[in-house]
Protein backbone atom coordinates (compact mmCIF):
# COMPACT_ATOMS: atom_id res chain seq x y z
CA UNK A 1 0.00 0.00 0.00
CA UNK A 2 1.38 3.38 -0.96
CA UNK A 3 0.94 6.34 1.36
CA UNK A 4 -0.15 9.37 -0.66
CA UNK A 5 -1.04 11.73 2.19
CA UNK A 6 -0.24 11.79 5.86
CA UNK A 7 -0.16 14.08 8.87
CA UNK A 8 3.02 16.15 8.85
CA UNK A 9 5.52 15.09 11.50
CA UNK A 10 5.64 18.73 12.60
CA UNK A 11 2.06 18.48 13.89
CA UNK A 12 1.39 16.57 17.10
CA UNK A 13 -1.96 15.27 15.86
CA UNK A 14 -3.82 16.75 18.84
CA UNK A 15 -7.40 17.57 17.90
CA UNK A 16 -7.84 21.25 17.01
CA UNK A 17 -10.17 23.31 19.16
CA UNK A 18 -11.01 25.63 16.25
CA UNK A 19 -14.60 26.29 15.14
CA UNK A 20 -15.98 24.57 12.03
CA UNK A 21 -14.88 26.41 8.91
CA UNK A 22 -12.07 28.30 10.64
CA UNK A 23 -8.93 28.30 8.50
CA UNK A 24 -6.36 28.20 11.35
CA UNK A 25 -6.19 24.41 10.89
CA UNK A 26 -5.20 24.77 7.23
CA UNK A 27 -2.56 27.37 8.05
CA UNK A 28 -1.12 25.25 10.91
CA UNK A 29 -0.82 22.35 8.49
CA UNK A 30 0.91 24.47 5.85
CA UNK A 31 3.51 25.69 8.35
CA UNK A 32 4.06 22.09 9.51
CA UNK A 33 4.40 20.78 5.95
CA UNK A 34 7.04 23.43 5.25
CA UNK A 35 8.93 22.44 8.42
CA UNK A 36 8.81 18.80 7.28
CA UNK A 37 9.93 19.59 3.73
CA UNK A 38 12.85 21.71 4.92
CA UNK A 39 13.59 19.10 7.61
CA UNK A 40 13.87 21.76 10.30
CA UNK A 41 11.38 20.55 12.92
CA UNK A 42 14.11 19.91 15.50
CA UNK A 43 15.74 23.30 14.87
CA UNK A 44 12.53 25.30 14.93
CA UNK A 45 11.09 27.29 17.81
CA UNK A 46 7.57 28.65 17.48
CA UNK A 47 5.98 31.48 19.45
CA UNK A 48 2.21 31.51 19.72
CA UNK A 49 0.08 34.54 20.52
CA UNK A 50 -2.87 35.43 22.66
CA UNK A 51 -6.00 34.89 20.61
CA UNK A 52 -7.68 31.90 19.00
CA UNK A 53 -4.32 30.27 18.25
CA UNK A 54 -3.05 30.62 21.84
CA UNK A 55 -3.07 26.82 22.11
CA UNK A 56 -0.91 26.32 19.00
CA UNK A 57 1.77 24.92 21.32
CA UNK A 58 -0.43 21.83 21.61
CA UNK A 59 -0.47 21.38 17.83
CA UNK A 60 3.06 22.09 16.58
CA UNK A 61 5.46 19.25 17.26
CA UNK A 62 8.49 21.44 17.97
CA UNK A 63 9.72 23.56 20.86
CA UNK A 64 7.02 26.15 21.53
CA UNK A 65 6.62 29.18 23.70
CA UNK A 66 3.42 31.07 24.39
CA UNK A 67 3.74 34.84 24.50
CA UNK A 68 1.96 37.68 26.25
CA UNK A 69 -0.49 39.48 23.94
CA UNK A 70 1.39 41.04 21.03
CA UNK A 71 4.90 40.39 22.33
CA UNK A 72 5.86 37.39 20.19
CA UNK A 73 8.27 39.34 17.93
CA UNK A 74 10.22 40.66 20.97
CA UNK A 75 10.45 37.15 22.41
CA UNK A 76 11.50 35.70 19.06
CA UNK A 77 14.13 38.45 18.74
CA UNK A 78 15.90 37.39 21.93
CA UNK A 79 15.75 33.68 21.14
CA UNK A 80 17.09 34.16 17.61
CA UNK A 81 19.90 36.42 18.84
CA UNK A 82 20.94 33.86 21.46
CA UNK A 83 20.43 30.84 19.18
CA UNK A 84 21.17 32.20 15.70
CA UNK A 85 21.19 28.83 13.92
CA UNK A 86 17.60 27.98 14.92
CA UNK A 87 14.49 28.80 12.89
CA UNK A 88 12.08 31.13 14.68
CA UNK A 89 8.48 31.71 13.76
CA UNK A 90 5.76 33.73 15.41
CA UNK A 91 2.14 32.85 14.75
CA UNK A 92 -0.06 35.89 15.39
CA UNK A 93 -3.58 37.08 14.82
CA UNK A 94 -4.62 40.57 13.79
CA UNK A 95 -5.49 41.88 17.26
CA UNK A 96 -2.24 40.48 18.59
CA UNK A 97 -0.01 41.75 15.79
CA UNK A 98 -1.70 44.88 14.44
CA UNK A 99 -3.13 46.32 17.64
CA UNK A 100 -1.50 45.56 21.00
CA UNK A 101 1.65 44.23 19.33
CA UNK A 102 2.06 46.96 16.69
CA UNK A 103 5.21 48.29 18.37
CA UNK A 104 6.89 44.90 18.60
CA UNK A 105 6.19 43.88 14.99
CA UNK A 106 7.23 47.23 13.49
CA UNK A 107 10.50 47.27 15.43
CA UNK A 108 11.31 43.61 14.79
CA UNK A 109 10.91 44.29 11.07
CA UNK A 110 12.89 47.54 11.26
CA UNK A 111 15.73 45.75 13.04
CA UNK A 112 15.62 43.08 10.37
CA UNK A 113 15.23 40.28 12.89
CA UNK A 114 15.79 36.98 11.10
CA UNK A 115 12.45 35.48 12.05
CA UNK A 116 9.30 34.47 10.16
CA UNK A 117 5.92 35.83 11.20
CA UNK A 118 2.76 34.04 10.15
CA UNK A 119 0.12 36.75 10.43
CA UNK A 120 -3.44 35.43 10.35
CA UNK A 121 -5.90 38.18 9.45
CA UNK A 122 -9.60 37.42 9.98
CA UNK A 123 -10.64 41.07 10.53
CA UNK A 124 -11.64 40.75 14.19
CA UNK A 125 -10.90 39.41 17.68
CA UNK A 126 -12.14 35.84 17.47
CA UNK A 127 -11.42 34.37 20.88
CA UNK A 128 -13.00 37.19 22.87
CA UNK A 129 -16.19 37.04 20.84
CA UNK A 130 -15.88 39.11 17.68
CA UNK A 131 -14.78 42.59 18.65
CA UNK A 132 -13.39 45.15 16.21
CA UNK A 133 -9.72 44.79 15.24
CA UNK A 134 -7.45 47.27 13.43
CA UNK A 135 -8.10 45.07 10.36
CA UNK A 136 -11.91 45.25 10.57
CA UNK A 137 -13.21 46.53 7.22
CA UNK A 138 -15.12 49.79 6.86
CA UNK A 139 -18.81 49.12 7.36
CA UNK A 140 -18.14 45.76 9.01
CA UNK A 141 -20.32 45.10 12.03
CA UNK A 142 -18.61 43.66 15.11
CA UNK A 143 -19.64 43.61 18.78
CA UNK A 144 -17.67 46.83 19.40
CA UNK A 145 -18.52 48.46 16.07
CA UNK A 146 -22.25 47.63 16.22
CA UNK A 147 -23.12 50.36 13.67
CA UNK A 148 -20.44 49.22 11.26
CA UNK A 149 -16.87 50.50 11.32
CA UNK A 150 -16.82 54.17 10.36
CA UNK A 151 -13.62 55.88 9.26
CA UNK A 152 -14.49 59.03 11.23
CA UNK A 153 -14.94 57.02 14.45
CA UNK A 154 -12.48 54.17 14.21
CA UNK A 155 -10.12 55.12 11.44
CA UNK A 156 -9.09 52.91 8.54
CA UNK A 157 -8.24 49.20 8.45
CA UNK A 158 -4.53 48.45 8.96
CA UNK A 159 -2.63 47.20 5.92
CA UNK A 160 0.28 45.49 7.62
CA UNK A 161 2.10 44.16 4.54
CA UNK A 162 2.09 47.60 2.95
CA UNK A 163 3.25 49.15 6.23
CA UNK A 164 6.05 46.71 7.03
CA UNK A 165 7.38 46.27 3.50
CA UNK A 166 8.81 49.81 3.49
CA UNK A 167 11.21 48.90 6.31
CA UNK A 168 14.77 48.24 5.14
CA UNK A 169 14.98 45.35 7.59
CA UNK A 170 12.10 43.49 5.96
CA UNK A 171 13.41 40.84 3.56
CA UNK A 172 10.17 39.15 2.56
CA UNK A 173 6.61 40.39 2.97
CA UNK A 174 3.75 38.61 1.25
CA UNK A 175 -0.05 38.44 1.54
CA UNK A 176 -1.93 35.29 0.62
CA UNK A 177 -5.34 33.77 1.29
CA UNK A 178 -6.63 30.28 2.03
CA UNK A 179 -9.99 30.63 0.28
CA UNK A 180 -9.36 27.96 -2.41
CA UNK A 181 -6.87 25.19 -3.25
CA UNK A 182 -4.85 27.39 -5.63
CA UNK A 183 -4.38 30.06 -2.97
CA UNK A 184 -3.62 27.43 -0.31
CA UNK A 185 -0.78 26.16 -2.51
CA UNK A 186 0.44 29.74 -2.99
CA UNK A 187 0.31 30.29 0.77
CA UNK A 188 2.47 27.25 1.38
CA UNK A 189 4.99 28.44 -1.22
CA UNK A 190 5.14 31.85 0.45
CA UNK A 191 5.67 30.31 3.91
CA UNK A 192 8.44 28.12 2.53
CA UNK A 193 10.08 31.09 0.86
CA UNK A 194 9.91 33.06 4.11
CA UNK A 195 11.66 30.26 6.05
CA UNK A 196 14.28 29.95 3.30
CA UNK A 197 14.96 33.69 3.35
CA UNK A 198 15.21 33.50 7.14
CA UNK A 199 17.85 30.77 6.70
CA UNK A 200 19.77 33.01 4.31
CA UNK A 201 19.85 35.63 7.05
CA UNK A 202 18.48 38.39 4.83
CA UNK A 203 16.13 39.91 7.41
CA UNK A 204 12.60 39.92 8.70
CA UNK A 205 10.01 37.79 6.87
CA UNK A 206 6.23 37.80 7.13
CA UNK A 207 3.37 36.03 5.40
CA UNK A 208 -0.04 37.57 6.04
CA UNK A 209 -2.73 34.97 5.47
CA UNK A 210 -6.31 36.14 4.96
CA UNK A 211 -8.44 33.85 7.07
CA UNK A 212 -12.12 33.33 7.95
CA UNK A 213 -14.10 33.50 11.14
CA UNK A 214 -17.50 31.98 10.30
CA UNK A 215 -18.57 32.00 13.97
CA UNK A 216 -18.07 35.71 14.58
CA UNK A 217 -18.92 36.77 11.05
CA UNK A 218 -22.25 34.93 11.48
CA UNK A 219 -21.80 33.06 8.21
CA UNK A 220 -21.62 29.44 7.14
CA UNK A 221 -18.08 28.21 6.32
CA UNK A 222 -18.84 28.38 2.59
CA UNK A 223 -20.38 31.85 2.78
CA UNK A 224 -17.42 32.97 4.90
CA UNK A 225 -15.05 32.03 2.05
CA UNK A 226 -17.26 34.01 -0.33
CA UNK A 227 -17.25 36.99 2.04
CA UNK A 228 -13.46 36.88 2.16
CA UNK A 229 -13.30 36.93 -1.67
CA UNK A 230 -15.86 39.71 -2.03
CA UNK A 231 -14.79 41.99 0.81
CA UNK A 232 -11.33 41.19 2.13
CA UNK A 233 -9.27 40.46 -0.97
CA UNK A 234 -10.29 43.72 -2.74
CA UNK A 235 -9.09 45.76 0.29
CA UNK A 236 -6.15 43.51 1.15
CA UNK A 237 -4.61 42.67 -2.24
CA UNK A 238 -2.68 39.41 -2.48
CA UNK A 239 0.92 39.14 -3.61
CA UNK A 240 4.52 39.77 -2.67
CA UNK A 241 5.16 43.26 -1.33
CA UNK A 242 8.87 42.89 -0.67
CA UNK A 243 11.46 40.38 -1.74
CA UNK A 244 14.92 41.55 -0.80
CA UNK A 245 17.21 41.50 -3.79
CA UNK A 246 14.39 41.36 -6.33
Amino acid sequence: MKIIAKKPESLTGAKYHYCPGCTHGIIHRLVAEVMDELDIREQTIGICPVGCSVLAYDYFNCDMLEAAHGRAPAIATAIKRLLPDRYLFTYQGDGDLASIGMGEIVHASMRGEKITTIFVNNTLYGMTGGQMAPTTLLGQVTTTSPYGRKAEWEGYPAKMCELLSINEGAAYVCRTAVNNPANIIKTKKAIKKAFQIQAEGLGFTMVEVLSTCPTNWGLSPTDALKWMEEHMIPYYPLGEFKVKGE
Partner: protein
Amino acid sequence: MQRVLMKGNEAIAEGAIRAGCKGFFGYPITPSSEIAEYMARKMPALGGVFVQAESELAAINMVYGGAATGSRVMTASSGPGISLKQEGISFLAEGELPCLIVDICRGGPGLGGIQPSQADYFQATRGGGHGDYHIIVLAPSSAQEMMDFTMLGFELADKHRSPVMIMAEGTLGNLIEPVVLRDAVTEFVDKPWAITGCRGRQPNIVNTLHMPVELLQTRNQHLTKKYEAIRSEEIRSEEFMTEDADLILVAYGIMARIARKAVINARQLGLKTGLIRPITLWPYPYETLGRAARHCKAMVSVEISTVGQMIEDIRLAAEGKVPVHYIGEIGRTPNPEEITQQLLAIAEREGLR
Protein backbone atom coordinates in the same frame (compact mmCIF):
# COMPACT_ATOMS: atom_id res chain seq x y z
CA MET B 1 42.35 39.81 43.86
CA GLN B 2 41.74 42.94 41.87
CA ARG B 3 40.25 45.96 43.59
CA VAL B 4 38.95 48.79 41.41
CA LEU B 5 36.91 51.96 41.77
CA MET B 6 33.50 51.45 40.23
CA LYS B 7 30.11 53.05 40.02
CA GLY B 8 27.35 50.91 41.54
CA ASN B 9 25.62 50.57 38.19
CA GLU B 10 28.86 49.42 36.55
CA ALA B 11 29.44 46.94 39.35
CA ILE B 12 26.06 45.41 38.54
CA ALA B 13 26.94 45.10 34.86
CA GLU B 14 30.41 43.68 35.56
CA GLY B 15 28.93 41.28 38.12
CA ALA B 16 26.41 40.10 35.55
CA ILE B 17 29.16 39.41 33.02
CA ARG B 18 31.13 37.49 35.67
CA ALA B 19 27.98 35.53 36.50
CA GLY B 20 27.80 34.40 32.87
CA CYS B 21 25.03 36.72 31.68
CA LYS B 22 24.67 36.20 27.91
CA GLY B 23 21.89 38.64 27.09
CA PHE B 24 21.00 42.16 28.15
CA PHE B 25 17.76 43.70 26.91
CA GLY B 26 16.99 47.23 28.03
CA TYR B 27 15.62 50.66 27.43
CA PRO B 28 17.33 53.87 28.58
CA ILE B 29 16.12 55.51 31.78
CA THR B 30 17.83 57.62 34.43
CA PRO B 31 19.33 56.65 36.88
CA SER B 32 19.94 53.14 35.53
CA SER B 33 21.31 53.76 32.03
CA GLU B 34 24.98 53.11 32.86
CA ILE B 35 24.12 49.42 33.18
CA ALA B 36 22.86 49.26 29.59
CA GLU B 37 25.78 51.39 28.37
CA TYR B 38 28.32 49.11 30.05
CA MET B 39 26.68 46.03 28.55
CA ALA B 40 26.51 47.64 25.09
CA ARG B 41 30.29 48.20 25.28
CA LYS B 42 31.23 44.78 26.64
CA MET B 43 28.80 42.19 25.28
CA PRO B 44 29.84 42.02 21.60
CA ALA B 45 33.45 41.03 22.38
CA LEU B 46 32.22 38.45 24.92
CA GLY B 47 29.93 36.78 22.40
CA GLY B 48 26.90 37.98 24.33
CA VAL B 49 23.79 39.72 23.10
CA PHE B 50 22.86 43.35 23.74
CA VAL B 51 19.61 44.68 22.35
CA GLN B 52 18.26 48.15 23.01
CA ALA B 53 14.57 47.37 22.87
CA GLU B 54 11.92 49.70 21.47
CA SER B 55 10.15 49.79 24.83
CA GLU B 56 10.27 48.43 28.35
CA LEU B 57 7.51 46.00 27.34
CA ALA B 58 9.63 44.66 24.51
CA ALA B 59 12.72 44.56 26.75
CA ILE B 60 11.10 42.41 29.43
CA ASN B 61 9.61 40.14 26.78
CA MET B 62 13.05 39.74 25.24
CA VAL B 63 14.16 38.68 28.71
CA TYR B 64 11.26 36.19 28.67
CA GLY B 65 12.46 34.74 25.36
CA GLY B 66 16.12 34.82 26.33
CA ALA B 67 15.51 33.16 29.69
CA ALA B 68 13.47 30.47 27.96
CA THR B 69 16.60 29.42 26.02
CA GLY B 70 18.30 28.67 29.33
CA SER B 71 20.82 31.49 29.01
CA ARG B 72 21.41 33.87 31.88
CA VAL B 73 19.75 37.12 30.82
CA MET B 74 18.79 40.40 32.43
CA THR B 75 17.30 43.83 32.12
CA ALA B 76 17.69 47.03 34.12
CA SER B 77 15.45 50.03 34.52
CA SER B 78 13.96 52.44 37.02
CA GLY B 79 10.47 53.05 38.50
CA PRO B 80 8.40 54.12 35.46
CA GLY B 81 10.16 51.50 33.34
CA ILE B 82 9.71 48.81 35.97
CA SER B 83 5.97 49.61 35.99
CA LEU B 84 5.86 48.84 32.26
CA LYS B 85 7.78 45.63 32.80
CA GLN B 86 5.24 44.24 35.25
CA GLU B 87 3.30 42.39 32.55
CA GLY B 88 6.45 40.48 31.62
CA ILE B 89 7.46 39.87 35.23
CA SER B 90 4.12 38.20 35.91
CA PHE B 91 4.63 35.96 32.85
CA LEU B 92 8.24 35.20 33.89
CA ALA B 93 7.06 34.17 37.36
CA GLU B 94 4.37 31.90 35.94
CA GLY B 95 6.65 30.52 33.22
CA GLU B 96 9.28 29.90 35.96
CA LEU B 97 11.96 31.55 33.86
CA PRO B 98 15.10 32.53 35.77
CA CYS B 99 16.36 36.04 35.05
CA LEU B 100 17.61 39.19 36.74
CA ILE B 101 15.67 42.46 36.80
CA VAL B 102 17.39 45.54 38.19
CA ASP B 103 15.43 48.50 39.56
CA ILE B 104 17.61 51.54 40.23
CA CYS B 105 14.90 53.46 42.03
CA ARG B 106 13.93 57.06 41.45
CA GLY B 107 11.15 59.08 42.99
CA GLY B 108 7.54 58.51 42.06
CA PRO B 109 4.61 58.20 41.48
CA GLY B 110 4.37 59.25 37.85
CA LEU B 111 7.56 60.54 36.33
CA GLY B 112 8.44 61.66 39.85
CA GLY B 113 12.05 62.70 39.83
CA ILE B 114 15.45 61.20 39.21
CA GLN B 115 16.66 61.60 42.78
CA PRO B 116 17.15 58.66 45.17
CA SER B 117 14.14 56.78 46.36
CA GLN B 118 12.99 53.53 47.93
CA ALA B 119 9.42 54.15 46.84
CA ASP B 120 9.26 51.05 44.64
CA TYR B 121 9.18 48.81 47.72
CA PHE B 122 5.47 47.96 47.41
CA GLN B 123 5.87 47.22 43.71
CA ALA B 124 8.95 45.05 44.24
CA THR B 125 7.71 43.06 47.22
CA ARG B 126 3.98 42.77 46.49
CA GLY B 127 4.26 41.14 43.10
CA GLY B 128 3.83 44.28 41.04
CA GLY B 129 2.16 42.49 38.17
CA HIS B 130 -1.08 40.53 38.11
CA GLY B 131 -1.66 37.14 39.70
CA ASP B 132 -0.57 34.92 42.55
CA TYR B 133 3.21 35.15 42.71
CA HIS B 134 6.34 36.44 44.39
CA ILE B 135 9.81 37.25 43.13
CA ILE B 136 13.02 37.27 45.16
CA VAL B 137 14.14 40.86 45.88
CA LEU B 138 17.71 41.66 46.99
CA ALA B 139 18.69 45.07 48.39
CA PRO B 140 22.42 45.84 48.18
CA SER B 141 23.95 48.66 50.21
CA SER B 142 27.34 49.20 48.56
CA ALA B 143 28.96 49.07 45.14
CA GLN B 144 30.56 45.77 46.25
CA GLU B 145 27.16 44.33 47.01
CA MET B 146 25.83 45.61 43.68
CA MET B 147 28.31 43.17 42.13
CA ASP B 148 27.92 40.40 44.69
CA PHE B 149 24.11 40.44 44.81
CA THR B 150 23.93 40.49 41.02
CA MET B 151 25.96 37.27 40.95
CA LEU B 152 23.92 35.84 43.84
CA GLY B 153 20.75 36.91 42.05
CA PHE B 154 21.57 34.84 38.97
CA GLU B 155 22.36 31.88 41.19
CA LEU B 156 19.09 32.14 43.13
CA ALA B 157 17.17 32.65 39.89
CA ASP B 158 18.52 29.40 38.46
CA LYS B 159 18.18 27.51 41.75
CA HIS B 160 14.52 28.39 42.18
CA ARG B 161 13.55 28.98 38.53
CA SER B 162 12.32 32.44 39.43
CA PRO B 163 12.89 36.05 38.38
CA VAL B 164 15.11 37.87 40.88
CA MET B 165 15.05 41.62 41.36
CA ILE B 166 17.88 43.84 42.55
CA MET B 167 16.34 46.92 44.14
CA ALA B 168 18.77 49.78 44.78
CA GLU B 169 18.43 53.51 45.16
CA GLY B 170 19.69 55.86 42.47
CA THR B 171 22.32 56.92 45.02
CA LEU B 172 23.87 53.46 44.99
CA GLY B 173 23.69 53.23 41.24
CA ASN B 174 25.81 56.34 40.96
CA LEU B 175 28.05 55.90 44.01
CA ILE B 176 31.70 55.24 43.17
CA GLU B 177 33.42 52.89 45.65
CA PRO B 178 36.19 50.29 45.70
CA VAL B 179 34.98 46.93 44.44
CA VAL B 180 36.78 43.62 44.65
CA LEU B 181 36.26 41.89 41.30
CA ARG B 182 34.87 38.40 41.89
CA ASP B 183 35.93 35.32 39.96
CA ALA B 184 33.81 34.44 36.96
CA VAL B 185 31.24 31.71 37.48
CA THR B 186 32.16 28.57 35.58
CA GLU B 187 29.55 26.05 36.69
CA PHE B 188 25.93 26.34 35.70
CA VAL B 189 22.85 24.24 36.40
CA ASP B 190 21.32 22.11 33.65
CA LYS B 191 18.09 23.43 32.20
CA PRO B 192 16.43 20.48 30.49
CA TRP B 193 13.21 22.51 30.24
CA ALA B 194 14.79 25.15 27.99
CA ILE B 195 13.46 25.98 24.52
CA THR B 196 16.40 25.27 22.23
CA GLY B 197 14.96 23.19 19.39
CA CYS B 198 13.93 19.61 20.14
CA ARG B 199 16.81 17.69 18.55
CA GLY B 200 17.00 14.26 20.16
CA ARG B 201 14.19 14.87 22.65
CA GLN B 202 10.47 15.55 22.98
CA PRO B 203 9.46 19.18 22.35
CA ASN B 204 9.55 21.56 25.31
CA ILE B 205 6.78 24.07 25.90
CA VAL B 206 6.92 27.28 27.91
CA ASN B 207 3.44 28.59 28.53
CA THR B 208 1.50 30.44 31.19
CA LEU B 209 -2.04 29.45 30.19
CA HIS B 210 -3.76 26.83 32.33
CA MET B 211 -7.36 26.80 31.21
CA PRO B 212 -9.08 23.96 33.06
CA VAL B 213 -9.38 25.17 36.66
CA GLU B 214 -7.73 22.01 38.00
CA LEU B 215 -4.61 22.77 35.95
CA LEU B 216 -4.53 26.33 37.25
CA GLN B 217 -4.91 25.14 40.83
CA THR B 218 -2.18 22.52 40.48
CA ARG B 219 0.07 25.10 38.89
CA ASN B 220 -0.47 27.71 41.60
CA GLN B 221 -0.03 25.11 44.33
CA HIS B 222 3.29 24.21 42.75
CA LEU B 223 4.34 27.88 42.77
CA THR B 224 3.17 28.27 46.37
CA LYS B 225 5.34 25.32 47.44
CA LYS B 226 8.26 26.91 45.69
CA TYR B 227 7.68 30.18 47.54
CA GLU B 228 7.60 28.24 50.83
CA ALA B 229 10.96 26.70 49.94
CA ILE B 230 12.38 30.14 49.13
CA ARG B 231 11.06 31.46 52.45
CA SER B 232 12.75 28.66 54.36
CA GLU B 233 16.09 28.83 52.50
CA GLU B 234 16.75 32.36 51.33
CA ILE B 235 15.82 34.92 53.95
CA ARG B 236 18.82 37.14 54.58
CA SER B 237 19.27 39.98 57.06
CA GLU B 238 21.92 41.59 59.26
CA GLU B 239 21.70 42.76 62.86
CA PHE B 240 23.80 45.44 64.50
CA MET B 241 23.77 46.04 68.29
CA THR B 242 20.23 44.73 68.68
CA GLU B 243 20.86 42.50 71.76
CA ASP B 244 20.22 45.16 74.40
CA ALA B 245 18.53 47.78 72.23
CA ASP B 246 15.43 49.64 73.41
CA LEU B 247 14.89 51.26 70.04
CA ILE B 248 15.50 49.20 66.91
CA LEU B 249 15.87 50.82 63.52
CA VAL B 250 14.96 48.85 60.43
CA ALA B 251 16.53 50.03 57.17
CA TYR B 252 17.73 48.50 53.90
CA GLY B 253 19.95 49.49 51.02
CA ILE B 254 21.91 52.72 51.34
CA MET B 255 19.68 53.70 54.29
CA ALA B 256 21.04 50.75 56.29
CA ARG B 257 24.53 52.26 56.12
CA ILE B 258 23.30 55.65 57.23
CA ALA B 259 21.11 54.17 59.95
CA ARG B 260 24.10 52.20 61.26
CA LYS B 261 26.00 55.43 61.82
CA ALA B 262 22.93 56.93 63.49
CA VAL B 263 22.84 53.93 65.86
CA ILE B 264 26.45 54.59 66.87
CA ASN B 265 25.71 58.32 67.34
CA ALA B 266 22.63 57.63 69.46
CA ARG B 267 24.51 55.10 71.60
CA GLN B 268 27.14 57.78 72.32
CA LEU B 269 24.27 59.99 73.52
CA GLY B 270 23.10 57.23 75.87
CA LEU B 271 20.21 55.89 73.81
CA LYS B 272 20.32 52.11 73.38
CA THR B 273 19.61 51.66 69.71
CA GLY B 274 20.20 48.83 67.26
CA LEU B 275 19.67 48.08 63.57
CA ILE B 276 18.11 45.29 61.58
CA ARG B 277 18.92 45.38 57.89
CA PRO B 278 16.72 43.24 55.65
CA ILE B 279 18.83 42.01 52.72
CA THR B 280 16.05 40.05 51.06
CA LEU B 281 13.03 42.33 50.83
CA TRP B 282 11.09 39.27 49.69
CA PRO B 283 11.22 36.92 51.43
CA TYR B 284 11.18 39.37 54.32
CA PRO B 285 12.95 38.57 57.63
CA TYR B 286 9.72 38.62 59.67
CA GLU B 287 11.07 36.20 62.28
CA THR B 288 14.19 38.24 62.98
CA LEU B 289 12.08 41.35 63.44
CA GLY B 290 9.49 39.47 65.48
CA ARG B 291 12.17 38.20 67.89
CA ALA B 292 13.52 41.72 68.26
CA ALA B 293 10.02 43.08 68.92
CA ARG B 294 9.78 40.77 71.94
CA HIS B 295 12.67 42.48 73.77
CA CYS B 296 12.86 46.06 72.48
CA LYS B 297 10.55 48.94 73.42
CA ALA B 298 9.95 50.50 70.01
CA MET B 299 10.95 50.13 66.37
CA VAL B 300 11.58 52.69 63.64
CA SER B 301 11.36 52.28 59.91
CA VAL B 302 13.89 54.46 58.11
CA GLU B 303 13.10 54.78 54.42
CA ILE B 304 13.54 57.07 51.43
CA SER B 305 9.80 57.39 50.94
CA THR B 306 7.26 59.80 52.35
CA VAL B 307 4.22 57.53 52.72
CA GLY B 308 6.18 54.74 54.41
CA GLN B 309 6.19 51.39 52.67
CA MET B 310 8.42 48.89 54.50
CA ILE B 311 6.86 50.07 57.76
CA GLU B 312 3.89 47.84 56.91
CA ASP B 313 6.13 44.76 57.00
CA ILE B 314 7.69 45.88 60.28
CA ARG B 315 4.22 46.22 61.80
CA LEU B 316 3.32 42.76 60.54
CA ALA B 317 6.48 41.36 62.14
CA ALA B 318 5.99 43.28 65.40
CA GLU B 319 2.43 41.99 65.74
CA GLY B 320 1.47 45.02 67.83
CA LYS B 321 3.98 44.21 70.56
CA VAL B 322 5.80 47.54 70.20
CA PRO B 323 4.99 50.88 68.57
CA VAL B 324 6.55 51.30 65.12
CA HIS B 325 7.68 54.81 64.22
CA TYR B 326 8.62 56.27 60.88
CA ILE B 327 11.48 58.40 59.60
CA GLY B 328 11.38 59.06 55.90
CA GLU B 329 11.37 61.49 53.05
CA ILE B 330 11.87 61.21 49.33
CA GLY B 331 14.36 62.71 46.90
CA ARG B 332 17.38 62.86 49.19
CA THR B 333 19.34 60.57 51.47
CA PRO B 334 19.38 62.10 54.97
CA ASN B 335 22.68 62.20 56.88
CA PRO B 336 23.20 60.19 60.09
CA GLU B 337 23.01 63.30 62.31
CA GLU B 338 19.54 64.15 61.05
CA ILE B 339 18.36 60.63 61.80
CA THR B 340 19.99 60.73 65.23
CA GLN B 341 18.03 63.90 66.06
CA GLN B 342 14.78 62.25 65.01
CA LEU B 343 15.64 59.15 67.06
CA LEU B 344 16.13 61.33 70.14
CA ALA B 345 12.71 62.88 69.58
CA ILE B 346 11.11 59.43 69.24
CA ALA B 347 12.92 58.25 72.40
CA GLU B 348 11.55 61.29 74.23
CA ARG B 349 7.99 60.45 73.18
CA GLU B 350 8.42 56.81 74.15
CA GLY B 351 9.98 57.70 77.54
CA LEU B 352 13.25 55.95 76.67
CA ARG B 353 15.48 58.75 77.89
